[in-house]
């Protein structure tokens, strides 16, 4: 691992030469880059030279993207051009109460827009991990941040030429998880915590969640299965019924693309009632943003395993790593409902204005709101007892470890940004 740090008091030109050399080397040997950032921005006295220096770093960030993992740890105030380097890296972590990220500080904001805002409100760890989604996680203090960074690093391969790391695993790969049999409530409208499922399935209940406070209706993060690093994506029924909206689609898409770039298998837990309807979503471009998640899952060539725990409705079903998007193994729990939409809405449309809707709803549930229509068509490989989920995923990962799949040659794909 190579690490780069930028300090507020170092002359930019010298700094850039040094940083650039290290990053070039990192790319050559396939070593990850960790940046420890604390920078006030371009040094005004150095003029255009300092701007050139920034661009040199940006260029290297971009070239290294997808080649070696790049992580930024923000350990102090970062303003101006200095914030774009972290934004170009794969993960940005912050230190609570002592680190800030903003394009322009509170003073400039005050003079331009007459807004009164503190550093913390404008670009503190809370803002960026919960509101803007710029940072992926925040830690208590510098030491906590560094220790967590080390732990996080254990999940990642050194470069895109290396496989996902496999550590020694003491958690039996064939462990049954009896708690999963009762985790999904009987009432389809009742929420449960997807983290209960994820923690039950993975090694030692250890799950490193990425962006735990942003777009909480989707859960993403790293864990291990039988010692092997996996990326986990799950809808969170506890928040907004687990529906997909603009923020959750973007959060999920970026995570899926990282996993695909660095050979990390993706496990997807699906309980999604659909995309969030409404003007604010449509005006915000949910179509464009939702397409990103669809794009990311479809494009990914790493092993993809999907478990439908409950609802998989409509377009959102397709998006969530379905069989149709080259999912390798797709399971459904007995509580799964793979359908175009929920019973109530469907009956209201099909039998518009007719009476005895309750009866029609029951018929719909019987016909569509279960995993069988998907299973008989081969869109679901098996309907499994929930407590056996861990065992099956571990076994499938073993088989898929040697998976080889390539996309058609292209300069690069054109993801709907």
């Amino acid at each position, binding site marked *: 691992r190579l690490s780069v740090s930028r300090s507020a008091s170092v002359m930019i030109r010298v700094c850039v030469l040094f940083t650039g050399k290290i990053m070039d080397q990192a790319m050559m040997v396939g070593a990850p880059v960790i940046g420890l950032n604390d920078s006030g921005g371009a040094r005004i006295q150095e003029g255009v030279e300092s701007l050139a220096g920034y661009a040199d770093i940006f260029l290297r960030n971009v070239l290294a993207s997808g080649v070696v993992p790049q992580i930024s740890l923000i350990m102090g105030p970062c303003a101006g051009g200095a914030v774009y380097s972290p934004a170009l890296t794969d993960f940005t972590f912050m230190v609570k*109460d*002592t680190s800030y990220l903003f394009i322009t500080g509170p003073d400039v904001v005050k003079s331009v827009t007459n807004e009164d805002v503190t550093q913390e409100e404008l670009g503190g760890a809370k803002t960026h991990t919960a509101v803007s989604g710029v940072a992926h996680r925040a830690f*208590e*203090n*510098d*030491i*906590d941040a560094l*220790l*967590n960074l*080390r*732990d*996080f690093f*254990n999940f990642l391969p050194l470069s895109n030429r*290396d496989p996902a*790391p*496999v*550590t*020694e*695993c*003491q*958690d*039996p790969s064939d462990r049954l*998880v*009896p*708690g*999963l*049999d*009762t*985790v999904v409530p*009987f009432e389809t409208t009742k929420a449960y*915590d997807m983290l*209960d499922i994820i*923690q*039950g399935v993975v*090694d*030692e*209940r250890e799950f490193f969640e990425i962006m735990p406070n942003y777009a909480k209706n989707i859960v993403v993060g790293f864990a291990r299965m039988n*010692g092997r690093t996996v990326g986990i994506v799950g809808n969170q029924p506890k928040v907004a019924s687990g529906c997909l909206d603009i923020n959750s689609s973007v959060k999920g898409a970026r995570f899926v693309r990282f996993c695909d770039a660095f050979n990390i298998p993706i496990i997807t837990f699906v309980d999604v009632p659909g995309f969030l309807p409404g003007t604010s979503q449509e005006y915000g471009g949910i179509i464009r943003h939702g397409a990103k998640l669809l794009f990311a899952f479809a494009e990914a060539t790493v092993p993809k395993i999907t478990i439908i725990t409950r609802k998989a409705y409509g377009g959102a079903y397709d998006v969530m790593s379905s069989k149709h998007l080259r999912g390798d193994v797709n399971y459904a729990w007995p509580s799964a409902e793979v359908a175009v939409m929920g019973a109530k809405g469907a009956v209201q449309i099909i039998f518009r204005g007719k009476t005895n809707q309750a009866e029609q709803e029951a018929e719909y549930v019987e016909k569509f709101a279960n995993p069988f229509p998907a299973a008989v068509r081969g869109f679901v490989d098996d309907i499994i007892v929930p407590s056996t989920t861990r065992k099956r995923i571990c076994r499938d990962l073993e088989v898929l470890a040697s998976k080889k799949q390539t996309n058609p040659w292209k300069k690069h794909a054109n993801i709907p940004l």
Partner: protein
Amino acid sequence: ANRGEIACRVMKTCRKMGIKTVAVHSDVDANAVHVKMADEAVCVGPAPTNRSYLNMDAIMDAIRITGAQAVHPGYGFLSENKEFAKRLAAEDVVFVGPDTHAIHAMGDKIESKLLAKAAKVNVIPGFDGVVEVSYPVMIKASAGGGGKGMRIAWNDDETREGFRLSSQEAASSFGDDRLLIEKFVDNPRHIEIQVLADKHGNALWLNERECSIQRRNQKVVEEAPSTFLDPDTRRAMGEQAVQLAKAVKYSSAGTVEFLVDSKKNFYFLEMNTRLQVEHPITECITGLDLVQQMIRIAKGFPLVHRQEDIPINGWAIESRVYAEDPYKSFGLPSIGRLSQYQEPISLPNVRVDSGIQEGSDISIYYDPMISKLVTYGATRAEALQKMEDALDHYVIRGVTHNIPLLREIITNPRFISGDITTNFLPEEYPEGFTGHRLTPEGRRELLATAAALYISAQLRSQRFMGNLSNSVVFDIVMNTFFLLFQVEVDGGSVEVSGEWNLASALLPLSINGNPRVLQCLSRDATGQITLQYLGTQFKLRVLSRLAAKLTGHMPEKVPEDTSSILRSPMPGSVVAVSVKPGDMVAEGQEICVIEAMKMQNSLIAARAAKVKSVHCKAGETVGEGDLLVELE
């Protein structure tokens, strides 16, 4: 007609006897263990007990649908409800318990005492309209049981307060708000006699159970036999219990509760006309299956045993494992999902009666009991040793539980000596329970274990595929399969060895050659480790020397000021809010009342202040830690 642990217990015996079983359940219990265990199951209503498990109409319907021939009521709910027994009799369904006459006679605390007096049983001087009593007094729900609606008052104010809370609780738990007030006996022991009577006028006493360890008048640890009784007292109590049973023409299993003072005088307290929670310890020392006996009696068979057939074999101890926080008044209910759950049943002479499993929810609707942990030994010391082991091996994750308290009780020197009263907990822990107090030796062991655990996790994270070279040197001694750590702590050396399976919930270790079972509850990258050691959970942090030195330079975070805010100490529903914004409150004044698990808890102001805002209203459901009221 019950749920949880006791429903499972009854079904186990039914299975042995070849009897098919039907479970009733509320909708939230549809996945419960007792439902899965039964041959058939019928849903009798929504979660609140008065609409499901107390809903006689629905239960009668369930009986008709399934064609059930008999009903075992368990304990609580309808077990001592004469109306229910009457309705069963009207439909020719057998009630596995005494007949309505005995339930009626013993169910009312006032009437039962009059009857006991008539049967020449020693009774406590009480407010039966005959005797004037002085403080302290005990306020009880007349129809009550299980400590619900029960309070002690030392003066007029407390009596008024207690009267109000108890009558509300009595009304919500038993649908009967009549109360009884009697003299409160100081330094008492709670000792009860198990009786068994058939429909042919035969009755037996099956020895005693000592249930003095209580908190808020609910039993926590029980044992059989009692360390306190000599054979003569035992016989005298047993014979009086049988006299009472015969006097009310009792049939089935029942329990006669006595208060015993330090002079071994005993007073009749009440008779429970049902199977008791703590019946397993009697089963352990007598070898009888009480449920089987109850079913036989209900069918009309005479008793097969005679009094001289009833032995006391060895010693049995029962710990009630509750989902509650023992650090808050010896146990306030907690709720949650059991994310991990392992009973110590692989150990010999350990019995666990439970009605839950990994993944079960402990909800606010029902009693928060997780299980009854029973250990058995030839001697009391052996049974206690087994209990220690069993508690150390018990894995419960996802809810707060009272194992720290249970383990402290059974290792308390005063408890071991047998010198206990019903005030044991407040006497031993006047400041409230604070967990295990570490000895210097214990602290060394704990620190050494945490360090060893941290290092083994660090070592493991360096052994990933393709990178097996290990350049970091740790000052430890290692052999092939077992990792042996030598840790220098406070100038002393501690040797810790074990298998270090970091995925297992249990850590069986050898510390300086002594076997110890610890549990690692959590462990993170920053060296924060939570260990359960001797029952109590300890939070530790392991840092390298450098990281520890640098931690001193980190900015300190200011904790939230809590004296001016009132948060809910437990999940439950708000029964009443006594203040509104702008009110002045005195220190100790009641602010609101939260009901959880059928217990009402009044929350008081921590200091005198003006109420700034109220964030809850009566009838609302609140979670643990929810903001209720803010003071200025």
